[in-house]
């Protein structure tokens, strides 16, 4: 039985999207969990590893497991950061991961697969289209956990996103190293989002939402990018 979780908020949400972290805390506390935010935390090392800097990533991974070792469960509102921890820490740390990856969960996974909760008592109103981010879909295999949570919100009208499983084109430093290709991929994703007519595009990763949201803002589109936690917390 989990009654206390360590929150890894991610450097991106901490710095640019505090509302995502706040919403995560709200949802977890509403379910009666004690949430601890260790202030020593910074970054999981994903950007460094994926950009070709494994030594820097390893140092960050070592920090991460040291900081989160005391917790029986660690939760994070990011599919890609959790995928890094769960899928790559063991290799990166050559096994010295102190069992932390196996206790680290993406938010929707923790709620649905670990706690067995789908209805978190949210009161959101609006049409929502869901973008399954690549790493939660293909690395973490969260499956339909986020959709089950969304379907349990009484006021949410879900609209299916065409070509939902296509990447939005973010890919960390890919977005700047191959900015033209990344931008072309984003164009396709935005066309799909706009074609749904939904008021909200929802995902489980602030990084993908930063990309999609940054594109929507540039085009002056009214669609709101919201993290799953924000819908569940309302």
């Amino acid at each position, binding site marked *: 039985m989990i009654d206390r979780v360590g929150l890894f908020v991610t450097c991106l949400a901490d710095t640019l*999207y505090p509302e995502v972290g706040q919403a995560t805390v709200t949802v977890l506390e509403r379910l009666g969990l004690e949430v601890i935010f260790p202030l020593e935390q910074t970054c999981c090392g994903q950007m460094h590893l994926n950009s070709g800097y494994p030594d820097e990533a390893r140092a960050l991974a070592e920090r991460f497991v040291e900081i989160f070792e005391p917790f029986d469960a660690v939760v994070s509102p990011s599919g890609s950061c959790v995928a890094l921890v769960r899928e790559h820490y063991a290799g990166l740390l050559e096994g010295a991961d102190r069992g932390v990856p196996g206790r680290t969960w993406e938010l929707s996974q923790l709620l649905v697969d670990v706690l067995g909760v789908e209805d978190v008592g949210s009161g959101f109103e609006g049409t929502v289209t869901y973008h399954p981010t690549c790493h939660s879909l293909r690395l973490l295999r969260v499956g339909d956990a986020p959709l089950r949570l969304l379907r349990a919100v009484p006021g949410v009208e879900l609209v299916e996103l065409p070509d939902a499983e296509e990447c939005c084109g973010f890919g960390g430093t890919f977005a700047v190293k*191959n900015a033209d290709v990344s931008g072309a991929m984003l164009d396709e994703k935005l066309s799909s989002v706009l074609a749904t007519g939904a008021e909200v595009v929802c995902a489980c990763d602030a990084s993908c939402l930063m990309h999609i949201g940054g594109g929507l803002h540039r085009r002056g589109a009214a669609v709101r990018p919201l993290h799953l936690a924000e819908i569940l917390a309302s």
Partner: protein
Amino acid sequence: MSEAARDARPETFPHAAPAAIANAQLRRNIHRATTSIRARRAGVVAEVPDWQELRDAGAAIKDAALWRLDEALVQLESAVVRAGGAVHWARDAAEANDIVTALVCAEGVGEVVKVKSLATDEIRLNEALEAAGVTPVETDLAELIVQLAGERPSHLLVPAIHKNRVEIRDLFRDQLGLPGLSDDPGELAEAARLHLRAAFLRARVAISGANFAVAQTGTVCVVESEGNGRMCTTLPEVLITVMGIEKVIPEWRDLGVLLQLLPRSSTGERMNPYTSLWTGVREGDGPRSFHLVLLDAGRTRVLADRVGRDALRCIRCSACINVCPVYRQTGGHAYHTPYAGPIGAILAPQLEGEQGSAGSLPFASSLCGACYDVCPVKIDIPSILVHERAKQVRRERAGIEGLSLRRLGRVLASRASYERAQRLARRLQRPVVRDGWLTRFPPGPLAAWGRSRDLPAVPDQTFREWWESRDRS
């Protein structure tokens, strides 16, 4: 490196991509073709209940050959020789081209017919043959189109994916001397057929690649869709096969797994129309002489890399290319290698080694992972991409990117420096923030971001500042 040599290097992927992206026709063709082929593949894969087990078996078969490649190749050689064939070993592209050119010239012919082959594209055999006064005739329809246009293939399996039928009609009118030709697909195919039929009947020497070669029996296998491969491997008197050494498989029965995986993954068919298998030569049936050229060209170096070696499992199905969202935007030419898409991005830099020009390719991916999901021999392409990136970073030393990422690594190494950086970012952005957004950027990586996206500003309160204020209250 001399000035001239540097000029001769192909441009990097990020430099080549914009022209491809700007070509609306190209993107439409590629979009249409990959969408339909993805759906076909998904359909025929879904009907195989043990697909995942088949993938495991395919990976195990390829690994079994790769982990004892030295023995498997010698076994293959003796089986081929026993069956009346000859085996030649080529360390690199130049050696392979010399061997093939000498064999062709010894026959005294001025023309050879060719089955579509990536290995011969890789070593640029056609150019070597032409330099020796021999005309190579590509007999795969799409490959013929690309050859007549003087271009390079843009897709492993569908080399002319970038061309539509009006473009092909104009090409055939011009190159085949058929001024009245229409763009009706049937009429275009018939024109190619007549052109190729004459070449098949003239040809005394044929050149092929190989999809598989069985070490146990010495049998070589080519799969194709048009029957041109069957013509090439049976009609001419002399058959020369150029094959990368990673194409060897241990046993005859392994074909039972691989011939299920390949057509379903590549063309989205349950079975490809033509599967040609031959073992050496046979009196009065097929070619009177058979030469197998075993090509290394960097493959043993790839084999020595514990992570990268899995790329040698590749059976060239192109499933990864068809699902790749990056390839979908650019097509194959921007990769400047015969192996485009995700597999090209891990194979080309490894085959070329440190001196190669494919160093930008491992970065040409958002690491979305779609390629790994469809790979019939379970090559973990995203992990190899990341591994190749690290190799490339080590090779290039620190540019501006390296310096900033290493600096960032140090900033993230302690709470104090991280929090300082957050506060500094908030202060520095102040003059340019409008309504919580950054919409104009200084030159550099932020400007690249800003070409198609805005960036949210650092808010007045970070999450940790909120948490601390909440803790206090």
